[in-house]
């Protein structure tokens, strides 16, 4: 075998692997093949399973690119139903965006508490008890692109249509964001929290 441009020392340094030097992880091609076919045997024994996801045990094989995987196979619809409802949440004054999974919460009060934890602030639940004087106004963007007060619609309707959340400063809202703040604001919120 040629020694390339590096001289003898390189090839002499490397004498190949010491057998068994690091446990069961690999090397022999036959070992690899056995592993794969063992997996394949498992696959055959569970062909009743509908979910095709469990069948792809080897990462990245066959080489179907991830874009194609996301957009073609039947499991896509299956996955959608199980998928979480992550929405971005921004808070005026906070330098970062956070994400929250709406499907994890049971109602507006639950959401308010989660938002408080997320942003380490206590304004949101406060807002529900003393609406007019509260600093924070939680609003959300719905499917139609309109910004709405959180709490106006039933919870199920809310999580279906909410695209993202924003915790706005009341002063910002007053500047003409376009919202009309009602007295005793978010009625839904207040009802839930004071239960």
């Amino acid at each position, binding site marked *: *075998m*040629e*020694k*390339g*441009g*590096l001289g003898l020392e*390189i*090839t002499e*340094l*490397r004498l*190949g*692997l*010491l057998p068994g*030097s*690091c446990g069961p*992880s*690999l*090397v*022999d*091609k036959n070992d*690899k*093949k056995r592993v*794969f076919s063992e997996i*394949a045997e498992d*696959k*055959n024994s569970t*062909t009743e399973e509908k979910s*095709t*996801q469990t*069948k*792809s045990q*080897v*990462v*990245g*094989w*066959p*080489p*179907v*690119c*991830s*874009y*194609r995987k996301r*957009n*073609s*196979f039947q499991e896509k619809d299956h996955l959608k139903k199980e998928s979480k409802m992550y929405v*971005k949440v921004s808070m005026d004054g906070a330098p970062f965006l956070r994400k929250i999974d709406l499907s994890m919460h049971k109602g507006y009060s639950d959401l308010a508490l989660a938002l408080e934890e997320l942003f380490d602030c206590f304004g949101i639940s406060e807002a529900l008890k003393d609406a007019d004087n509260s600093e924070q106004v939680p609003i959300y*963007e719905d499917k139609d*692109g309109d910004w709405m007060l959180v709490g106006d619609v039933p919870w199920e309707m809310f999580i279906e249509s909410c*695209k*993202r959340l924003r915790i706005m400063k009341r002063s910002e809202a007053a500047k003409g964001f376009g919202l009309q703040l009602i007295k005793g604001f978010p009625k839904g919120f207040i009802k839930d929290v004071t239960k």
Partner: protein
Amino acid sequence: MQRMACSFPDEVLEHVFSFVQCDNDRNAISTVCKSWYKIERWSRRRVFVGNCYAISPDMVIRRFPDVRSIELKGKPHFADFNLVPDGWGGYVAPWISAMAAAYPWLEEIRLKRMVITDENLELISKSFKNFKVLVLSSCEGFSTDGLAAIAANCRSYLHCRNLRELDLRESEVEDLSGHWLKHFPDDYTSLVSLNIACLGCEVSFSALERLVGRCPNLRTLRLNRAVPLDKLANLLRRAPQLVELGTGAYSSELRPDVFSNLSGAFSGCKELKSLSGFWDVVPGYLPAVYPICCRLTTLNLSYATIQSPDLIKLVGQCQNLQRLWVLDYIEDAGLDAVAASCKDLRELRVFPSDPYGPEPNVPLTEQGLVSISEGCSKLQSVLYFCRQMSNAALMTIARNRPNMTRFRLCIIEPGTPDYLTLQPLDVGFGAIVEHCKDLQRLSLSGLLTDLVFEYIGTYAKKLEMLSVAFAGESDLGLHHVLSGCEKLRKLEIRDCPFGDKALLANAAKLETMRSLWMSSCSVTFGACKLLGQKMPRLNVEVIDERGTPDSRPESCPIDKLYIYRTVAGSRFDMPGFVWTIDEDSAMRLS
């Protein structure tokens, strides 16, 4: 001769150079003499950086001060198959910041497999006075908010910024809202190409209709799945000049009025040459495109779950087809029909409809590919997923099509032998490289020994990219390739028993290539350290999510290895699971 070369005024030379566009030729021009180097570098308008870490943005800017078009590639190809962990790198941010300052007249940015954020997009939208083209191919890290920024700033009276092309090809975009499209100003009319096929959410349809209606030069429109079929006809009527169309979901209740409306709209598109999309196809609506089939040169049905008889009826009418992408639902019978009707075919891609199933679900075998090789004399490029192959078939294909330049075969089960003889497929692939003397790209699969690599090293003298998986027996295989393939630029290997010997013996070769990827092979950390120390112009990246390689014996194989040549030294943005070694011979974590 040199005196003559310098006797032309600079402007004359610059004018002559302007006719030379190819990068290799321009590089050659720049080596003739100092004066030509100087003139060339000031007049180079287009730069292609195949690996964003091979050079730094500052170095590019220093050499080429007036660039108008840049193309950058980030992650290695195997990132497409989830082999590169999240956070590995490929961030475009430093490039955008540097170019925002240095290239105010930049017009085109093309990125592939890079990470681009909304902030980066905003910076692009505000920094370049004459920005025209943004192509994001398999990119990620941004949302529809970033697109809104691009749309909002696409036109400016002051700076004559006029966006022409926005192409999101297969990128992963966070869908916050479909309203980003509304940010295109009402007086913006310059759109030539829009590809939003990868977007998941509904875009504002009325905004889309108005946009399409007011851009008379629109020639490419690729819609996303969420655009329903009953809205397609209206869009087409507003853009009868379209050359390339990607439909949305191609399904709707079968209604004669919707059908005739659609069919009429298609007939009105006299320039249409390329069709794609066709998600969720209802076969009853396929005949709506029949009127334009004879003009089609490109047809992408690779998301269309339609069966062979419908596919045959459709493709049978496309006599001028040059490029066909289709699912294996086409079956061998369908490929026979293609071979008979599409005599101008240059490129065929057959994708698997059920890649994870243990059994073949459709009668698609090596026979389909053999038929195509017999019937389509211009065939140059093949990507074919199937479940059985024989040496005889490969030899036939090779003899039929010596003009082939790209041959990628994926036999779905690793290590599958010739199904007729149960032998390895070495001689079959050997025939491919022997007969197809201009072969540039090759992907192997099936049961293969070191012999196939000997054939490749011996015959594949023009080969530039090779992909190998579950193949070979020893370091000799890798050695054949590295020592024999003179034009090799990219080599990617997974799950092969190749170790240190061939790698170290051919270390110098690695500097002549763009990159080498090896995962789940037998390369040790010791060899990586040695290479890193001895080869300062290579970045040797050990990617291992199991923790520091020092915690395991030096002889223990590493998980993933990515080696690439660079003049920029080690990169500064490596995540915790990437280790690299420099001349200090101390292990360096980023």
